[in-house]
């Protein structure tokens, strides 16, 4: 893809980002207009401050960050496995992380410091444990098998999901928690969530951008990458760590949100080609914008009640994805 085309795509994405932020701020169950927003910016009052800043803005930004994280995590995993099927959900990270978070919740571990709660730690820990397990199991006599890895990931993810459902079924008194952990929601988004996920996203984003060239080498095969001066094993480990960190931090603030981590990076790859230096960046922005719009739909499509966001991402994403795949063939 030419540079000009890439710039055009990116400007379009940024335009959509601001459009998304604008509609997310102005539209909601309480009727507000641009004038209200302007008045609030000029001389703020408490009611509007809470609606605009603490409900709508924090929610839109969190949706963006989660979308960007999931999508970047997916982009890394797809490059890593050289397989378009890969994604945080497929390799078991999401399910693992959600199991950890629910476990912390049910054990009553409500301790937190600087916005990081034990729940986040548990989510990351169990997400990482699942990935490590899958990684170890798919290595036989030092030889790494891609398809074993994906299949093990699917199986381990299914196991983690069933354990999560078990915990929710037996220990939770409300159905709301089941919906949250299995379908995802931004209903309770607040600035504390952003404080958790923002630094993690920035760190992982910078790292992946810095290592994007190495990812391009890895795609050519381990021997070639090694001979071109990339230390294959270390790079692989770092990428796996980054994608796990991204996916599990997303899950710990918003539950499991399917599809974003699978279709967005794939779509971006179809649009701009396989160069990871651009792929990582564009996937992040596109994933963020996509999820921000999905969340906007989730909370406005039926006034007075909310849809779990997983319903929207799949309903919007799946048909579009099938269309894209068909076109390519």
């Amino acid at each position, binding site marked *: 893809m030419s540079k000009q085309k890439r710039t055009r795509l990116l400007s379009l994405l940024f335009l959509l980002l601001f459009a998304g932020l604008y509609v997310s701020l102005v539209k*909601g*169950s*309480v009727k507000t207009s641009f004038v209200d927003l302007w008045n609030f910016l000029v001389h703020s009052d408490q*009611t509007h401050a*809470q*609606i605009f800043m*603490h*409900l*709508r803005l924090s929610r839109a930004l969190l949706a963006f960050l989660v979308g960007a994280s999931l999508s970047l995590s997916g982009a890394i995993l797809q490059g890593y496995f050289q397989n378009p099927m890969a994604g945080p959900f497929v390799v078991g990270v999401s399910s693992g992380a959600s199991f950890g978070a629910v476990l912390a919740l049910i054990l009553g571990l409500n301790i937190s410091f600087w916005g990081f709660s034990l729940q986040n730690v548990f989510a990351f820990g169990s997400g990482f444990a699942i990935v490590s397990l899958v990684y170890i199991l798919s290595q036989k006599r030092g030889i790494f098998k891609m398809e074993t890895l994906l299949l093990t990931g699917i199986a381990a993810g299914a196991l983690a999901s069933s354990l999560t459902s078990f915990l929710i079924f037996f220990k939770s*008194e*409300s*159905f*709301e*928690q089941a919906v*949250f952990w299995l379908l995802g929601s931004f*209903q*309770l988004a*607040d600035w*504390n969530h952003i404080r958790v996920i923002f630094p993690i996203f920035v760190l992982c984003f910078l790292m992946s951008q810095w290592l994007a060239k190495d990812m391009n080498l890895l795609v050519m095969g381990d021997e070639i990458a090694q001979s071109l001066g990339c230390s294959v094993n270390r790079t692989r480990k770092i990428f796996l760590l980054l994608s796990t960190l991204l996916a599990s931090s997303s899950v710990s603030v918003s539950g499991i949100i399917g599809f974003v981590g699978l279709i967005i990076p794939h779509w971006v790859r179809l649009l701009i080609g396989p160069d990871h230096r651009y792929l990582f960046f564009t996937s992040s922005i596109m994933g963020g914008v996509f999820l921000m719009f999905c969340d906007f739909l989730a909370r406005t499509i039926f006034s*007075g*009640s*909310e849809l779990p966001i997983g319903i929207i991402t799949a309903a919007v994403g799946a048909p579009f994805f099938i269309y894209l795949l068909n076109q390519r063939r």
Partner: protein
Amino acid sequence: MKIKLKFTVLTLCLLFLHNPVFSGSQSLSIKDDLGYTHVLGTPPQRIISLAPNVTEILFALGLENRIIGVTRYCNYPTKAQSKNRIGGMVDLDLEKIIALRPDLIIAFRGNPLRLIQRIKSLDLPVFVLESGTTLESVFSLIKRIGLVTQSDNAAKDLVDHLGKDLKKIRDRLKNVRTRPKVFINLHGKGLWTSGNNSFMNDMVKEAKGRNIAGEVTRAWFSYNREELIHKNPDHILILAKAKKDFLDVKTWFAQEAHLESIQAVQKDNISFLEEDLVTRPGPRIFEAFGQIARILHPSSFEVER
């Protein structure tokens, strides 16, 4: 001398200010069931109820004009339906709640904890009630709502009145010796039932019946069909929104579910309980209790006094 006088006046003033009679209820504070402190200032004028039973209690306390928001499930009394809707019990519309500028939000057990914490974090005055699972606990629920809305007298009257109703029913059951086995069917055709941590269980117990699922320590779960046949209940109580739904479930029990062998089905001891009435720990739950008592022990109610 003058200085001394001034000093005395000042001390007197200070004394008066500190006197509880003068500072009034301003300094009084109570704790809600989650342990949050709630300061009783001026009586709340803009109340939002987050649960149907809370709405019913507020109306029964005569606070109709001070309620500004209810959930979409708050359908009783009819006037509640014309109040602002602030979403459901688990999917509250936080924006709307903020825009209504409430000075008191009353939450109940069905509202998820995370949601309540989110409301807290928005600096909204929320008071959380958990209540127990017994009929008696409804009295303390009403009293606490009376306390926080500062209508203690109305609450006391209501509790006295309901207490008399309860006593009447209990008196009727005083000499009952039998304990019929009861299966409670909570919802539709899935054999969902109540274990021993529930209002339903307590009501059946108080009505001198035996809940066959009573040994399970869970508020609700799906009962095993074999177990149901084995326990062979004398009565089946079906909770339903309307009579039509009840009849559906009733035919299901007798035909599709192959539970013909059960005593209750054979003797046609399958009864309808209006879901809203039975499941809301509010003033009407005593009416529900009376219905259950009548179903289980009709002979005790034959001679009306």
